[in-house]
Structures are given as C-alpha cells and as structure tokens.
C-alpha cells in the first residue's frame, strides 16, 4: 500500500531482565483509526513510548518511518514537531489553569515572549468548536468533568498541528455517552485527515471505530486484522489477546480451604472528594481460611478503592455495610484498627504508599510491627534486627544487608520488602494489590511461591491483579469487579479469560448510568 503513514519495523526494547518488545512491526495507514489491543503488560504503552520519543533513539532496536522517512527521536519535542501527539491515560492538564491556558501550555500564543491573550482565547474557542466542547475557554479545567477534560486534551493536541494522535485508554474513565462522543470525534478527525492510534481494553469500541487492529501479547505482534478483509469480532480479538499456554508460570498448590474468615456484606462508600459519587455499590464477598481469592476487573473498576476502604477506611467517605471477621462484626476506623484485627494490605504503589525510600530495609520491614518488638513504647533494637533478619531470609530479599536503603533495591526486591513488612505481622487476611506489577518474571515466580506458602499456612489472601493469567494461575475463586460493583463470581473450574471478559462486557451493557472518575488512590 502506498498510503502508509507510519511504519515501525522490528522494534525491540529491553529492560533489565525482561524483553518488553520483541521484533514488533506495525503499519499504520493514512487517515485511519488503528487500534492497539493487548493485556496489561503486553507492551502497548512501551511501543507508544518508543514511537513518541519517551525512549530515545538508541535505547531500542529497530526503525521508525513516518511518511517514508526514517525518524530518530531524541525526545518528545522532536516527535511532536512531526505531529505525533500522545494523550496519556492520566491526563496531563493543570486543574488550576483555564481551558485556554491548558490548550496552549508549552505552545503559548505569544509575540516576543509576551502572551497574546486575545489570540489565545479566540484560537481556543475555534479548537473547542472543532472537538465539540461547549465551554468558555476561561473556565478552569478543574471545574469540568473528566470527559470534557479528555476533549481539552484533544484540543491541545490539535493546537500542536497533530498528524498522528495516540490515545492511551481514553475512555477508561468515561461513561458511555462521553465515550461515544469521543469516538465520534475520532471518526470526524479521521475525515479531516488525522490518523489515530487507539489503545483500549474496551473491545466493543475497538470493533466500532477501528479500521485496523494490531494485537500484541508478551511484546510480540500476534495478529493483524483489517476491516473489510478480516472478520472482526470480540471473540476473535479476545482469543488473540489471551490465548497462551499456561505452563509452569505458576507454582502448584494444594488448596486446603477452611471456614470463612472475612465476610463483607453490602459494602458501599462514596468518593472522598466528590461526595455524591458512589465508588462501590453494595459489594458482597468473602474469603476463607487458606484460600486465595482474586479480584479481576478493568482499570478504574474500583478494586483498589474497595480493598483500601476495608483497610481501616483508608479510602472513601460515608461507608456503609458490614464486615464480619470469623463471624463477629468488626468496625475498623483506622489502619491500626485493621492491623489489630489481623488484616494487612500490600499496596499497588510500592514507592508512593508502600516504602519509606530513605530508610533501610530493617526500618521498613518492622514499621507496622514495632508494637510487637517493644515494651512500653521502647523498641528492643536487638529483637528488631533479629526479626528483620529472619524475614529477610524467609522471603529471600537480595541485598547487602538489612541496613541497605530500600531505594537501592531492584523492583522485585522492593516488592518483597513491602510484602515482608506485612507478613511479619502474621495477619489472618492479607490483601495484595497488584503484587507483581513492574517486576520481572523470575521475581514474580518467587512472589507466587510466597503467596502459596502463606495460603498453606492458613492465611486468607485477597489478590488484585490486572494480569488475568496471574489470577487464573493463582486463585481458588475470582470475583469480577466492574464499575464499582461485583459483577460476578467464578470458581477455579469456571474461570477463564473469556468468561471474565464476558462478565465484564455483560455488566457494562446493563449498567450505563454509573460513571467513574480517574482511578486514583487518595488518602
């Protein structure tokens, strides 16, 4: 085809210990909407970062051609100059600036470094009309909804004379009406000559707007589908996305499941800032002794918020519902209440919420357990060192010693420290939020072994993961969470990626009115 806009040839990108992209070749035609689909961690975002220059030329192998000319971007500015604009899932808007100021941020309408406000606002008005957003350019971005903010992002891209627009999960935080508006806009922009690459988990959308689809899995291109040539339907895409052999990636475990330990009934709560937004609506679930229960769901489904709300109401407002621990109702108003009840939560964001990076392994490991390692408020430092030493060995943290600062550890070892600090407390219920995010395959396997060992010791484990194979390989039972509700429950035999996806799709069809904001964890 002569009309190739972008061609990426044999792109290989390696990180220490892992090959994120393996010989990926992808062609995007002029004036088309090209969908890029794949599981979390498949390499979609990495590929787009290579394309937009976040990973500069030289840090990857392979070639990029734009309109037949080779490009070697050193940074984002260079790719933007050629009209490649990426809109990330976390919007890069400044809430305290106006829409117009945000649109021209870094691209100010100025003469001799003095901003021309008249031009700024009149150009902004034109751009807003193009994207179909009926707002005053002087309105602060913080005062408009997420859907409208997304449109502002696109207006911002248009202001940079975008030729190739990359959208990373643009509709994850939008409701159906907003999503449709956005998708219609993409089709409209296509007719105006703008090519788009759409990364999305919502396969219905992909089916609706995409002209071609590239499926990647484990850093490799698995499938290429073109509208008209191939039959495009959800089942086929799902198969390509997930169809892989699960051999030996997860250690075996003999499940020995006892009585119910934690039982949550009709648990609901509201967003901490937007007090009328229901985040979780009447969730019911339980976990038994020695059981590993998984929470599956898409980004922004509310899984992290749900478990954090249980952990001493660390998230949300106006909680309602009941929590039963071994049959007795308990109330946890703070993290220390949760700890006293034997509930531990391993955060998904180990650097932001899990570790104190300037402190050493010992102090990080023992922080929640200091009460057990002290008498009348005075820490027994010898016991502390022995305890830290014991758990360092138990979970094999690779380090020069427990006095090493945690910021010098690899991601996998940092994750083990976060895990270790909670295991040290000997909790009955251990909630793991994305326990293997961003760590390499070997470390993942070790974490799985630790999880299995804990389950074998009779602990109850709740595990959130965006990697479905991980849930399927590890869990005895899986709850599917979607849009703040428990959409379904699957036991080990029933659970498959197809059945989970089906539950999510069906649930999304049913509940159209509840909308969600950005998946954020705000303390």
């Amino acid at each position: 085809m002569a009309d190739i806009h972008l061609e990426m040839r044999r792109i290989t990108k390696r990180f220490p210990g892992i090959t994120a992209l393996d010989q990926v070749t992808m062609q995007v035609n002029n004036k088309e909407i090209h969908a890029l689909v794949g599981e979390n961690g498949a390499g979609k975002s990495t590929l787009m970062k290579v394309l937009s220059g976040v990973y500069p030329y030289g840090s990857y192998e392979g070639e990029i051609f734009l309109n037949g000319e080779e490009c070697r971007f050193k940074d984002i500015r260079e790719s933007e100059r050629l009209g490649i604009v990426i809109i990330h899932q976390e919007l890069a808007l400044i809430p305290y600036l106006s829409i117009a100021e945000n649109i021209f941020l870094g691209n100010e309408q100025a003469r001799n470094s003095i901003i021309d406000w008249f031009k700024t606002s009149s150009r902004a008005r034109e751009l807003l009309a193009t994207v179909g957003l009926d707002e005053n350019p002087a309105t602060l971005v913080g005062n408009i909804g997420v859907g409208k903010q997304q449109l502002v992002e696109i207006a911002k891209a248009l202001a940079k004379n975008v030729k190739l627009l990359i959208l990373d999960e643009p509709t994850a935080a939008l409701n159906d009406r907003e999503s449709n508006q956005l998708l219609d806009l993409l089709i409209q922009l296509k007719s105006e000559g703008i090519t788009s690459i759409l990364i999305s988990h919502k396969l219905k959308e992909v089916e609706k707007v995409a002209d071609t689809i590239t499926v990647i899995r484990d850093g490799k291109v698995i499938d290429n589908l073109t509208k008209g040539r191939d039959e495009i339907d959800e089942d086929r895409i799902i198969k390509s996305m997930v169809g892989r052999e699960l051999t030996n990636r997860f250690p075996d475990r003999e499940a020995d499941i006892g009585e119910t330990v934690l039982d949550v009934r009709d648990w609901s709560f509201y967003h901490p800032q937007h007090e009328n937004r229901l985040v979780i609506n009447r969730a019911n679930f339980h976990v038994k002794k020695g059981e590993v229960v998984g929470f599956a769901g898409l980004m922004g489904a509310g899984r992290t918020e749900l478990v954090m709300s249980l952990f001493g109401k660390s998230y949300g407002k106006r909680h309602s519902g009941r929590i039963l621990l071994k049959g007795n109702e308990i109330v946890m108003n703070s993290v220390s209440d949760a700890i006293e009840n034997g509930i531990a939560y391993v955060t998904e964001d180990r650097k932001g919420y899990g570790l104190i990076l300037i402190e050493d392994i010992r102090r990080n490991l023992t922080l929640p357990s200091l009460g057990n390692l002290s008498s009348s408020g005075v820490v027994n430092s010898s016991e502390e060192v022995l305890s830290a030493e014991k758990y360092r060995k138990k979970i094999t943290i690779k380090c020069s010693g427990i006095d090493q600062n945690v910021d010098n550890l690899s991601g996998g070892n940092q994750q083990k420290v976060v895990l270790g600090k909670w295991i040290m407390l000997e909790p009955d219920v251990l909630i793991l939020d994305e326990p293997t995010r961003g760590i390499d395959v070997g470390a993942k396997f070790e974490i799985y072994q630790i999880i299995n060992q804990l389950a074998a010791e009779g602990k109850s484990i709740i595990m959130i993961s965006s990697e479905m194979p991980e849930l399927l390989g590890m869990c005895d039972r899986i709850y599917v969470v979607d849009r703040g509700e428990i959409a379904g429950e699957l036991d080990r035999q029933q659970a498959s990626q197809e059945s989970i996806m089906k539950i999510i799709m069906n649930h999304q069809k049913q509940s159209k009115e509840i909308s969600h904001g950005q998946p954020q964890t705000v303390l």
Partner: protein
Amino acid sequence: MDSLKQYFKSNIRQYGMVLALVVIMFFFQIVTGGILLKPANVTNLVLQNSYVLILAVGMLLCILTGNIDLSVGSVVAFVGAVSAVMMVDWNMPVLPAILIALLIGIVVGAFHGVFIAYLRIPPFIVTLAGMLIFRGLTMVILKGQTKAPFEKSFQAIAAGYISGGGFSIGGFNLIAVLTGIILSALFILGIAVNRRNQKKYGFEVLPTGFETVRVLVILAAINWLTLSLALYNGIPIVMVVLFGLVLIYTFITQKTIFGRHIYALGGNEKAAKLSGVKTKRVMFLVYTNMGLLSAVAGMVVAGRLNAATPKAGTMFELDAIAACFIGGASASGGIGTVVGAIVGGLVMGVLNNGMSIMGVSVDWQQAIKGMVLLGAVCFDVYTKSKSQAD
C-alpha cells in the same frame, strides 16, 4: 577494614559536622590568641547558646516531619512575659510559676498542633500566624515595656552554677571534676554493655582498636570541657538542663516507637499512614512538644537577661532551624539527629563567639553565618548524592 569504611560512609554526615566544629574551634583558638578556649569563655559559650540549643532539639522533631516552626521566637518572648507577670507583678513563688509557664508552652504548642495535624493547615502558615499572634500578645502583656527584676533563684536557671560547696582542688571546682569522671565512667560502661549485647545477638561490632580511639577522643572532650568549667565557676545549671534534654530526646528519637514514627512520617507520610502510624497524632505531639521546649527556652532567656522584654527571642526560630540543617537534617524530612542539631548549633555558636572576640562587626557575622549554612547544606546534599550513587 571494610566495616570501618562502611561505618565512616554511613556516618559521614555526622562526623563531617563534628570535624567541621573542631576545625572551626581550632581556627578561632589561633586567631583569637587562645581566648576562645579559656575557661571563662567556654562557660560563656555554653550560657550564650543554651536557649538556641534547647530550641534546636524541639525544632529537629518538626524538621523530621518535613516542616518547620516559625513561632518559637515569639513563644519564647510570650512565655518570658507571662513568667514576669506571675513572678514580678503577682509575686508568685518560683516553682509554681515555672510549672504554669511550662503548661502555657504546652497549650501554645497544642494550639498550633490542632491546626496543623487535625485541620491540615500547612505548618508554615500556622506557625507564621503563631509568630505574629504571640509577638503581639507579648507586647500587650508587657505594654511595650521591660519587666524586671526576677528572683535570684529564677535567674540561677540561666546564669547559676552548681557550686562546689566551697570544695575545690587547686582552683578546680570539685563537683565539675567529679561530674567529668562519672560521665566518663558511665560512657565507658555504656559502650561496653552495648558491645556485649551486639556480640550476644551476633551483630558486627566496630574493630576494638578503632573503638578504643573513638572512646578516648570522646573521653578527652568530656573531661576537657568539665575541667575548663571547673577552672571557672563550675557547671552552669542550664547546661545540666540541656544535657538532660539531649539525652531524653536522643532516647525518644532513637529508641521509642514514637521516635520511629516521626522518622517514618517524615520519610513518606502516606506509607507511614498505611503502615498504621497515627500520623495526625504524631504531628500534633511534635508541635505540642515544640511549645513545651519554647517555654523552657523562654524562661532561660528571661532568667539570663533578668528581664522580660518585648523583643526577646527575635530570630531565634531561624537560628534553631539553621542549627538543624547545619547538623545534617534534611529539609524534606525523615533525616536528622538530636546530636546533629546540637553540633550544628555549636558551630553557629562558636562562629558567633569567635567573631565577636575578633571584633568582626555584627553585620559581617550575619553574612558569614548565612554562608556557613549554605555551605553546610551543600556539603550535605553532595554527600547524600554520593552515598546514593553506590
């Protein structure tokens, strides 16, 4: 040898400042022709800097949380004024007056603490407001005038000495000499017990030779100080207070759960909270404690001047903050020690004192102190980036 290297590396920030202090003292000893370390001047140094050092101890806790307290200078004046009203105007006995003054300090600190910890108002703003409020109240109470004099026993807190009861050996105050010997013995005992415990639990200990040198240097410093004081009037009472505070607060920060929670809060507040640290309570207590120590310093200042004045304590907050930063505390929180803050305060104190003896004008003193602060923090950032590189 490796463990020795490791030891130095992990302690370079503290040793670096102690070394700097020694170099500065050595320098002024030479340029002042030996006046700096004369017994009378050493005593003077202690008396002059005691209140800044007391404030630095409290300020360190605030800085560990990643914040500062700007109100301490005003609280010093306020507590001094209230004490003067109680003792001078109402003729209240000294002891109850002191206790009430301390209580007022706690209330003032708790006042700040409520806004900072529970209402989440940034500490900079709350304590800036406190600085204006309590400076204003001081002037209201004193009606813009100086109140004096205090009773002798109150003055003694700041300007008195532990007398040798007349006993002296060849001009040396006996109690001061004995204190030096007892402290030396306690120190050796402490080190020995610590080493035995470390060996018992199978931890690494410092090589014996190195440990011996370290102990000898510290013993020499202790005894040199007590002997100098013994040659003059003996041990100043305020120094006993200061020494006690340093011991107590070192213990709190290094050995207690509360102390560890302060460091954790300063290192990563969100992670600390999710680990069960009651972050609001810790914050509240840190600022309440600052109020208490401001009250102690306030009485020391009033006692030393033998008067309560509206201008007392001006700029003390900045001296205390500077002492902490020179002593290796990190502005972003989570790093710093009480001993470091004291060393930092002494660096500033010796600079002040040395330059005054040399006859350097006050204007230049300010500028030089500013440069020392900047240099110390640069050194700190540099060693931090180096220790992170490997």
